[in-house]
């Protein structure tokens, strides 16, 4: 990327979501070009000045807020959300322009150490399910090993993330591929959000930036530094509800939990090596995730990293493209409950043509699904939205052919280009 290209793309760093490729390319350019870095920092500082920060700062230290004759509290509440969003996602570069106070600065040097590495690989152990989405965590589940490798080459980034015996994602610099062996093989453009909130673990600096932001956000969040002869440990405790590492654990049901993160750095190179992340719920502390020995700048074969299984890949951008306009109009006007009913009844009928778009990701397991649900009846559909999930959960009663009833739910989402409901989980 040259300076002109940087100036063409820099505005994209201020969008609600940032394309990973653009971010990586811009960051690489800024590392080489002090002028462009200064330009970005000035823009970021201005952007920050436009946020309603003083109101937030006043609220976050719990000082009583004077009563106003105008209804500003809803705005402040929304602003709290916005700041969380902004500091969490919109400014991932740990430049001096990003929320900087003496408390959060403790993370600064460590963020700088890890953000310019050429490659890294690590094994993450997380309480999750092998086949579930990467953003899914469950404190009651067993640990699943997730191997992550990332390589930066010539302003491009390539990565591989693979759950042992389960779901995997590869980005080859152009397309993302996600698969579950013998069940799911989908591909999409680099903007396809296959990783969801788990993307935070793909870049160690993001995990650190989140903690820094949380420290800056509220004095209720705390960090303690300890050291040995060879290591420095920063232990973060997030007790400010909804502003600890919620974004990392987007769909992990972290609502009222406290989070504790132990970050261990090696003194000689300043690099983050070990991470442990606990959740504390009603006094019970559970280790949710740990990362052992992150290795940086390792020799890595791009061909091996981006190798994908030989399979028939379904392009997510084509899922809805063939839908006729009158049908599309009907699908767009469906409520989540209506869509869930249509999808489930299509499976039960054994004819899924009326739910082909919604079941696109389930193509390979449809025969098994149809067999399992043959003769069942579904009723009593109720929607429930969960703030952590972009889609909607629809709860329903499943009656088996033998008359046995079961309460179940399906997760569906319509955040695709055509705004139609697609089954996302629970089947």
């Amino acid at each position, binding site marked *: 990327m040259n300076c002109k290209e940087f100036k063409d793309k820099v505005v994209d760093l201020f969008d609600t979501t940032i394309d990973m490729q653009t971010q990586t390319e811009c960051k690489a350019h800024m590392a080489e070009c002090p002028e462009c870095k200064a330009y970005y920092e000035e*823009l970021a500082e*201005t952007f920050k000045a436009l946020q309603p920060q003083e109101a937030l700062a006043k609220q976050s230290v719990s000082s009583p807020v004077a009563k106003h004759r105008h209804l500003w509290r*809803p705005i402040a509440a929304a602003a709290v959300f916005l700041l969380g969003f902004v500091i969490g996602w919109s400014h991932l570069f740990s430049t001096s322009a990003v929320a900087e106070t003496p408390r959060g600065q403790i993370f600064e040097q460590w963020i700088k150490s890890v953000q310019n590495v050429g490659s890294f690989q690590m094994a993450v152990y997380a309480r999750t399910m092998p086949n579930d989405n990467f953003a899914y965590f469950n404190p009651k589940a067993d640990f699943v090993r997730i191997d992550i490798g990332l390589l930066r080459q010539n302003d491009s980034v390539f990565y591989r993330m693979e759950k042992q015996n389960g779901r995997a994602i590869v980005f080859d610099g152009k397309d993302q591929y996600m698969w579950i062996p013998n069940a799911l093989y989908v591909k999409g453009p680099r903007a396809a959000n296959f990783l969801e909130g788990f993307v935070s673990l793909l870049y160690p600096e993001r995990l650190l930036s989140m903690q820094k932001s949380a420290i800056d956000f509220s004095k209720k969040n705390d960090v303690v530094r300890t050291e040995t002869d060879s290591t420095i440990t920063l232990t973060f405790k997030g007790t400010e509800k909804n502003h600890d590492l919620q974004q990392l654990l987007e769909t992990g049901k972290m609502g009222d939990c406290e989070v504790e993160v132990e970050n261990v750095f090696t003194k000689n190179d300043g690099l983050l090596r070990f991470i442990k992340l606990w959740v504390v719920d009603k006094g019970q502390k559970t280790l949710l995730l740990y990362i052992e020995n992150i290795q940086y700048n390792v020799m890595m074969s791009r061909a091996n990293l981006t190798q994908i299984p030989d399979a028939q890949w379904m392009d997510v951008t084509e899922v809805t493209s063939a839908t006729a306009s009158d049908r599309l109009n009907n699908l767009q006007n469906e409520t989540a409950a209506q869509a869930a009913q249509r999808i489930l009844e299509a499976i039960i009928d054994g004819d899924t043509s009326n739910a082909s778009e919604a079941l696109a990701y389930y193509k390979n397991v449809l025969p098994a699904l149809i067999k399992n649900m043959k003769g069942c009846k579904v009723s009593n559909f109720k929607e429930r939205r969960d703030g952590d999930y972009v889609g909607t959960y629809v709860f329903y009663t499943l009656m088996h052919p033998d008359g046995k009833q079961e309460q179940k739910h399906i997760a569906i989402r319509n955040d695709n280009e055509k705004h139609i409901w697609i089954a996302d989980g629970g089947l």
Partner: protein
Amino acid sequence: MNQENNITMNKLAEHLRREQPHLMRYACYRLGDADDAKDALQDAYLKVCGKLSNEKSSEVKDWRNYIFRTLSNICTSRLSLSSRLKMIPLDARLEMTDLPAESNEADYQRIAQLLVEIPEEQAEVIRLRIYGNNSFADVAEILSLPLPTVKSRFLYGLEKIRKAMKQTKH
């Protein structure tokens, strides 16, 4: 109202429930008064509901953006009626930016005085992006502008505010 419109009404209510804080904040930063913002939001809601009884309602592909567009138009009408665009005197610009904010209203004043430095078309893009929490693509749809235009207005707006902030510091 037919069944299709009942369904759309449910979707609309869901959008409003989800987006109300952003709509309210956007209107507040546009109008400078929370009571006016509340009224504008109510007007927008009524207008959108009215659209539902119109046969053309099926033409609306994205209700969220439609609500924002309606609210933006209502704010424009209200401002042109009351000339509130000139509420903050130009000669008072930026002097308050270094003052500690005593309240959320003071915070509003600080931000409004930054926005008064730039043309309204750029300020509107910034308000929709930051306070309405819209993506650039959404802003483009709301304002019926090409995406590159939205992005360049946003960038020029930030650059001008930055320049003005620098001049004030000196």
